[in-house]
């Protein structure tokens, strides 16, 4: 199952778990499952139907431009990271 790496700032909502496996086929599903199991996580990651401004989701090491729509593989890793820009 895909694994979500929980940012340290959210771990008090997940019982201090650092990694959580989710039965999800997309980033949207993964966050929905997290919200079901650990209420409060979803709004910290999403707003207005998208990943929150200033935040990005990396799937298997790459920042996804698809955001919530990004499909996941069974062994995918998800990381929520600060959005960055280049010069």
């Amino acid at each position, binding site marked *: 199952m895909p694994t979500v*790496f929980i*940012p*340290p*700032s*959210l771990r008090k909502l997940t019982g201090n778990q*650092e990694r959580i496996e989710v039965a999800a086929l997309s980033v949207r599903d993964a966050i929905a499952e997290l919200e079901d199991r650990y209420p409060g996580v979803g*709004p*910290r*990651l999403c707003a207005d139907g998208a990943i*929150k*401004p*200033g*935040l990005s989701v*990396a799937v298997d*090491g*790459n*920042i*996804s*431009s698809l955001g919530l729509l990004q499909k996941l593989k069974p062994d995918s*890793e998800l*990381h*929520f*990271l*600060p*959005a*960055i*820009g*280049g*010069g």
Partner: protein
Amino acid sequence: MATVEKEQQAVSTNGHYKVIGTRPIRHDGVDKVTGRARYGADTRLTGMLPAAMLRSPHAHANIKSIDTSKAEALPGVRAVVTSADLPDATDRVANLGEGTVNLKHLSDNVLAGDKVLYRGHAIAAVAADNIHIAQEAVKLIQVEYELLPPVLTALEAMKPDAPLLHDDLRTDDLGEIADTPSNVATHIRFEKGDVEAGFAAAEVVVEREFHTATVHQGYIEPHNATALWNADGHITIWMSTQGTCTAPQQTAELLDLPVSRVKVVPMEIGGGFGGKISVYLPPVAAILSKKTGRPVQLVMSRTDVFEATGPTPGSAIRIKMGVDGQGRITAAEAWLAYEAGAYPGSPVGAGAMCVFACYDVPNGKVDGYDIVVNKPRTNAYRAPGATNAAFAVETVVDEICEKLKLDPIEFRINNGAKKGTRRIDGPVYPRIGMEETMAAIRDCEHNRTPLEGKHRGRGVATGFWFNIGLKSTAQATVNPDGTVALIEGSTDIGGTRASIAMQLAETLGIAAEDVVPTVVDTDSIGYTDVTGGSRVTFATGWAAYLAAKDIQGQMIERAAKIWDCDVTAVDYKDGGVVGPDGKRFSFKEIAAEAHKIGEPVIGRGSADPQEPGGAFGTHLVDVEVDMDTGKVTILRYTAAQDVGTAIHPAYVEGQIQGGAVQGIGWALNEEYFYDDQGTMRNSTYLDYRMPTTYDLPMIDTIIVEVPNPGHPYGVRGVGEVPIVPPPAALANAIYQATGVRMHELPMSPPRLLHEILKQRASNGDQ
């Protein structure tokens, strides 16, 4: 740069390709060297009015009132604007390609509302019959201020009793908002493993604090914008920008218009380095144009550029690293506080992700803070956030190597990140070339040549930058003579017309010179993200590759029609189409035939690639220090960088050299000098000391090619990472030369001399 002979230009240094790896003359070269290239300030339109800007003389003040009546009454004045002329920007966030922006902050930065937050903050603008009248009129605008104390550094701004810039700003910790207002906009944290156990297992632990000054990108061409708000409601803006498509987005959002109403014509750009992504002038020029019914031009002075456009942040950084007796890193911690300037948005997130990115750190913790201060809103500058962090961590690594008597290059190879390494922020690296750049430096002639002489030292440092992908579009029209007209939306800063055209040429199997690339306006090409993030050769090059593949497909169809066979019997190879019974058309032949028998052949490519491939660079430098003045002379400099595949090696070398030179300036001289009231005291190039050719030796480059598996030609971004290692490499060289560890940038003569004298005093020397 050495001159490359014509014969050499046709030989690929890569060996795998015919065009990629060669050094053709850049398509825009003649216009650039003959002065025909047109930059933003060259724009001349019938009836055009010049405009001037009123800027705050104070770093922090409430605006009680603005009276423009005397200015408006001055003969020759055509229009005056203040923030009252801008639509009310709600406190919402807009996605503008490379990132998001708070529109209220962006609007207030364009024209201050009820508060000025830095000296130079724009307040009003005047369009007049000539620039002298406009400048006189600006002086007649009366602003009543209520002065407030400024706060100028991250550490001061973090104190509980610090003056607040924004009454409504509360620290955001991944969505958890603090109860009380603060200058700390954001806190981020990354953790990996067991940090305490890691430090307990260390034989040597080094903990140091570092400070870096505010520095500017130092582009030669000041910001400019010429706007025409036409009677049909459409706005055209001629400007210098890194964001051809994001500039109209920002302008439209600020003016509360559909983006389709704003067209940007990107002029040639005289440098950007990240500093020409934000919009400052276009909305103001547009409103002045609307008021006057005439085109209006705004051009910044050099002082405006320094005081009112985004420099890179000053920072305070604490690094703690532990290493065991075998020379393996056991744990590392970083604490980074970056100055955002007047509005949130420093690159501390990137700094926090980069700080230990060169190493395999089993146990780590990183805290980052985005801090508002009374300085101009910071902006991107080549690998934003990474250079500050690398200065700190690479200096600590050098000190650890000294304590454990380890070779600093071998230490970095042994502890270096490689494929499969998990960063502290989480992701696992794909194939990367950090180790290869270190090995290239270890084995280079420079490193194998002993450095002799008094007060001379050699330093090494490495650095990382992510690079980014984002969206790009390219369109290629095949001409009957077999040439191809390529249009694209990426402003060409570093020779990207050539590097994009070469990827199209390689794919079609034609000469780079047979492609004519043009950068066009936003009505003429599909959406293309910024020229930044080292993304253009990667992503727009990919779009050009796709456009070429589209052309290949159309040529196959056309050949099948001519040869009266099925398309499956035709293939595209070696620069032409081949069919049954040995039939073949070269590209020029099929281009001519295609023109006779069907619709024009136009290839289209649009790309949103996701795997930009991180870039690593390692630099080696020899210095000599004048112990009586603290002046550092660079004797020799070599930079090795993993570039994936070098499309045009000369421009790759140029990017590495340019980045290294900017890093050297950041390291040794450049800084904003502020007085207690927040006034920059060196806001001209006479006083803001940037390196010149007199200060530098030739920067030798070693191109390392570890192809990026995420690109058809293996391209990695090139332009940013070379600015990352220089400050640390120089600090480590200065230590070898003097015995003084520098923990603050710039390491300018007075600052270095101060440390030398302190060391002498502590040693009891006279």
